[in-house]
């Protein structure tokens, strides 16, 4: 892979995350854990409730917790008002996100329980599912749920002939656009979410994966930062309380 001179409309290089890229833990007070991810104009909030009782009981799993995700776009997150309620797209995304998270959450430690993860897209400008997944693992950690690791997620793709990291909606609308949402566990090298739309060669996929890994590692550092800040804030708070 050669370093490339790409002129992106928002001034980024091909391998840069959007600016601002912000992760903040502890944004929803009532929740056991929560996080917000802002990636350019995309804003997603994640919140976690659980482990809790499964109702009705016959749905519980005696060996592990059930991890349930709801990915939802609020009506005014997009230009054309989104009709409230789940559609097929949000059902699929909720499923792939829950699948990916199950790889890092130690579900076996919470048999016969339910862990609920609510993912709300407040503003959408492409990359909402990866922002949601990135927020989700921070929210789970914030909730004190046992995990093997954090899981950063990011999309790589192609627009106007270039392989790019973290596409905006404008870039996704390019004639030759390719979008590849990607989630990754840096410590093990495991790919936990991988989807792709668009017409590409195997070589381009290779390039996109490499780029996505790089982006994911950067996001991982921001996830850790966010949690550190959160713990520091909590520590300050407990000082005050004392």
């Amino acid at each position, binding site marked *: 892979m050669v370093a490339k001179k790409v002129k992106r409309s928002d001034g980024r290089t091909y391998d840069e995350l959007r600016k601002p890229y912000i992760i903040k833990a502890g944004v*929803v007070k009532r929740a056991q854990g929560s996080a917000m991810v802002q990636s350019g104009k995309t804003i997603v909030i994640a919140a976690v409730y659980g482990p809790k009782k499964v109702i009705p009981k016959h749905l519980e799993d005696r060996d592990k917790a059930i991890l349930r995700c709801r990915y939802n776009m609020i009506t*005014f997150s997009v230009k054309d*008002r989104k009709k409230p309620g789940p559609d097929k797209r949000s059902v699929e995304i909720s499923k792939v996100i829950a699948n990916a998270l199950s790889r890092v959450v130690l579900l076996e430690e919470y048999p016969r329980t339910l862990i609920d993860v609510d993912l*709300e897209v407040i503003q959408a400008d492409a990359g909402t599912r990866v922002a949601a997944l990135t927020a989700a693992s921070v929210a789970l950690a914030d909730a004190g749920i046992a995990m093997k690791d954090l899981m950063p997620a990011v999309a790589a793709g192609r627009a106007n002939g270039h392989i790019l990291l973290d596409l905006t909606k404008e870039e996704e609308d390019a004639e030759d656009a390719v979008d590849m949402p990607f989630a990754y566990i840096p410590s093990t090298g495991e790919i936990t979410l991988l989807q792709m739309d668009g017409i590409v060669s195997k070589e381009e996929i290779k390039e996109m994966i490499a780029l996505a890994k790089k982006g994911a590692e950067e996001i991982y550092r921001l996830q850790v930062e966010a949690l550190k800040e959160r713990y520091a804030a909590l520590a300050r708070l407990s000082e005050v309380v004392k």
Partner: protein
Amino acid sequence: MITQTTKDYLVRLLKREARRDGRKLSEWRKVVIEKGIGENAEGSARVKLGDTEVIVGIKMQVGEPYPDKPDEGVMITMCEFLPMASSSFEAGPPGEDEIELGRVIDRGIREGKVIDTKKLVIVPGEKVWTVFMDIYVVNDDGNLYDAAALAAMAALTTAKIPKLDENYEIIEGEYEGKLPLNHAVVSLTAYKAGDVIFYDPTHQEESIIDSRLTVGVRDDGKIVSLQKGMEGSWTEEEVLKNIEFIQKKAQTFIKKVMK
């Protein structure tokens, strides 16, 4: 879950006109109003009332008028408690609490004739603007009624009417002007626990409440809506006294919202 011990403690405090966070009975928590929080909405606002957080977005669509009101635009209100807002955490079609809150907010705005719906006609009898007012509860730390009322009014003040092309399709990013408003309306809510009436309860305080009374007030001081909620009851005197209090107090909140 709030324990019985906590509840008993809160009741004892209230009886002495005291509250856990040191507020007076008719003192609101800190209110933060942020306008224009959603770039893809025609109008939007976030209101934080202590830790309670409500966001409201206004979306405008070209629609049809009601047959009996061919020369007026249409307003539709939707209210959803996001699952993240509280530990009841339920997705699904709106429940009765969401419906009641949505309808109470809607009623204040509608009956107060806040939006100048006569100016929302595109082709008389055929095409008018439909104003969607979508209320989302993000975090429930009590008194959703006031937070939602403030957020709704704040969002309306920021709303713009999109420009249309010759086929009545919205031209993205271009606007005719602001959504025409006749008035401002805010509703505030009195809460009753036993015989004590107080304002702006936290989620914890709500656990001991028997009843609420929401009063919609317009910028000209007129009352535009009432809603008694929950299982408790009110005497005539209590009703009138709290209407009077809210009638005054609302003007302060209207000023905050209109800033």
